């Protein structure tokens, strides 16, 4: 095989056996911005090389491509010139419907306070964090990566210890450092890293869905296979998880479907409060929209949702209140109505003029 041209290597392209070049983006930590587009890319293209670029990163598509084809459920749903399209058009085509959005007015009727975090402190990590999540609310915890958002969530759920403060659920104090206690009180936790923390990759889809509910699926100490299977099949169909067989290892599923398995595991416990850490990282646009719908639906049903997200469009679209952290402290609280990307970013970075997009913590698609 001949050496790949430099521009192809830089763009991570591989020659397609039928001619041309292709690339599938799958690493969520690599982003090509419009500014980093190598000029050599234009050379081969104008010399007549066709490039097929496969991606769900819309900013890359708009930066690199001239024509676009959108597929959904194995069918081609759109194929045309990119000129004249906006990202929202592609998302609609991919998802097949409008994105979840909290209609204005819906978010003003929060219920009783569920989760109360009072002056929570872990030395060197976060300081004096206080907030409340009420029934039917989606509260976003925003901030730069490293600002202590995930650490606060982990402390609330009892994975990490904290030095001072208290966490209460419906007035009942949660034991420090005990995920089992937090779960029993009605807290669910969808972690940031589903492969390392959310799933047991060797186990089947069914066993993963059932893992947090084994106590309920028992009959005389024995896990009832029929109940386990029924529970997994039920949640798989409600969340539209695409799987081959429930007994296949969960590692066979795509990232988005794996994330749905993690969600199913927690929803199966009917939590009062669900903490989700980066719920849509590394999953495709259509599944992302489904996850958003799901969170909005949960809030509508009276669950209190605490969402950590680096994706500002996601934060702005579905949350009722936005808490912004910087360097381990809670900087500000914004209501849905008067929040904007600029405001969140300036609170997160501590700079008065809103920084450029390049410094934004958001690393996902601006869909």
């Amino acid at each position, binding site marked *: 095989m001949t050496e790949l041209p430099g521009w192809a290597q830089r763009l991570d392209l591989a020659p397609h056996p039928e001619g041309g070049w292709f690339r599938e983006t799958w690493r969520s930590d690599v982003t090509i911005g419009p500014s980093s587009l190598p000029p050599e890319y234009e050379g081969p293209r104008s010399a007549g090389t066709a490039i097929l670029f496969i991606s769900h990163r819309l900013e890359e598509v708009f930066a690199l491509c001239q024509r676009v084809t959108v597929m959904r459920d*194995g069918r081609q749903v759109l194929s045309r010139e990119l000129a004249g399209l906006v990202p929202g058009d592609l998302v609609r085509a991919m998802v097949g419907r409008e994105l979840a959005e909290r209609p204005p007015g819906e978010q003003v009727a929060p219920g009783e306070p569920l989760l109360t975090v009072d002056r929570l402190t872990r030395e060197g990590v976060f300081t004096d964090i206080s907030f409340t999540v009420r029934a039917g609310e989606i509260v976003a915890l925003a901030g730069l990566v490293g600002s202590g958002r995930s650490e606060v969530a982990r402390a609330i*759920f009892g*994975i990490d210890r904290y030095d001072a403060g208290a966490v209460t659920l419906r007035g009942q104090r949660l034991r420090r450092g005990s*995920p*089992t206690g*937090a*779960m*029993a009180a009605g807290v669910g*936790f969808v*972690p940031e890293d589903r492969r*390392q*923390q*959310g*799933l*047991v*990759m*060797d*186990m089947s889809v069914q*066993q993963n869905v059932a*893992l*947090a509910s*084994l*106590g309920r699926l*028992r009959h005389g*100490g*024995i*896990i009832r*296979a029929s109940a386990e*299977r*029924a*529970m997994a*099949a*039920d949640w798989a*169909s*409600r969340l539209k998880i*695409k*799987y*081959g*067989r*429930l*007994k*296949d*290892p969960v*590692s*066979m*599923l*795509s990232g988005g479907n794996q994330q749905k398995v993690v969600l199913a*595991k927690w*929803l199966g416990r*009917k939590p009062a409060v669900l903490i989700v850490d980066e719920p849509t990282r590394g999953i495709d646009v259509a599944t992302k929209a489904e996850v958003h719908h*799901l969170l909005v*639906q*949960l809030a*509508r*049903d*009276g*669950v209190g949702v605490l969402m950590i997200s680096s994706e500002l469009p996601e934060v702005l679209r579905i949350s009722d209140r936005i808490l912004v952290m910087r360097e381990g402290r809670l900087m500000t609280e914004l209501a849905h109505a008067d929040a904007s990307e600029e405001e969140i970013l300036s609170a997160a970075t501590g700079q008065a003029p809103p920084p450029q997009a390049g410094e934004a913590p958001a690393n996902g698609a601006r869909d």
Partner: protein
Amino acid sequence: MSALVSQSERPPPPAPAGTGARKLTERAFRIRESGIIVVLVVFVAVTASVQPRFLNITNIQFILVNTTVFALLALGETMVVISRNYDLSVGSVLGLSAYLSASLFGGHPGFPIPLAFLAGLGIGLGCGMLNGIMVAAGRVPSLVVTLATLYIFRGIDILIVGGKEVVANSLPSAFLDIPKATVLGIPVIAIAIAVVIGIGAYYLRSFRSGRELYAIGSNPDAARLAGIPIGRRVFVAFTASGAIAGVAGVLWAAQYGTIDSTAGTGYELQVISAVVVGGVAIFGGSGSAVGAALGALLLNTISSALYVLGISPFWNQAIFGFLLLLAITLDRFISVRLTAALRVRGARHE
């Protein structure tokens, strides 16, 4: 919860069919146990064709009785290895329990035999709990803890036993007859141990705490986040392993009759070999108690075959080593092939 949760009473939808693919995966998942049986059958056939005496009923009974102690130890070790831990102290626990329980008969020939088994169980339980506390509460790696207790328990054994030994004629004949009883030619003890292993395998597969041991071994972080009390589960696994080794010690005493301070020396590595040959992943998370028991049976059959064929026992160890390598290679091979096969099939469902 309107759309999402209120419909929980509705019957689950039928899972997508795929009978051909189903057979493929199920066969592949069972291949480990059947693989051992195939190797076992081939080995027995080859040995018997060279030396027909090998299939003599006495020899088969001898192999089965000899396997019982190892198969029991393998059951306890399987529970520990599945949780991504190791119990290196089983040989020393066996030795301690064998001597102490057998010496109970010393002064009192009428000492009830069930009490001797209870004593062995209690000694093993104590040793196992000690291991479990240090691993679970002290957060010390189990390899270190049980390596230390391997020497400590053996040291206590030597302190107690000194140069003495329990000899067969100080033991009640009913006790020594335990391994000799047969039903339809099958040693009763082998049947009893098979039942115990069946119960152990069922526990690991179908009980909450058994299932959770697999989750702990496969992904400790995810297990903790799913609310699994890791410390408690690991403690129970070590306690069970110790208790089982204690009972195995009493059986060992009944089988050999003569017990000095070296009883069970080096058994820990043979047991771990049997467990790995039997398909339990050495880094936890998968494998079955039945596979581990079959692994023990295979290793014992090989020792016996080499003896019957008059081959130097040196080859015994070389062949064990070779089998271990084969088992690990096979596991790797199967998991790679299986992943590839499922991925091709999974792609059709996307």
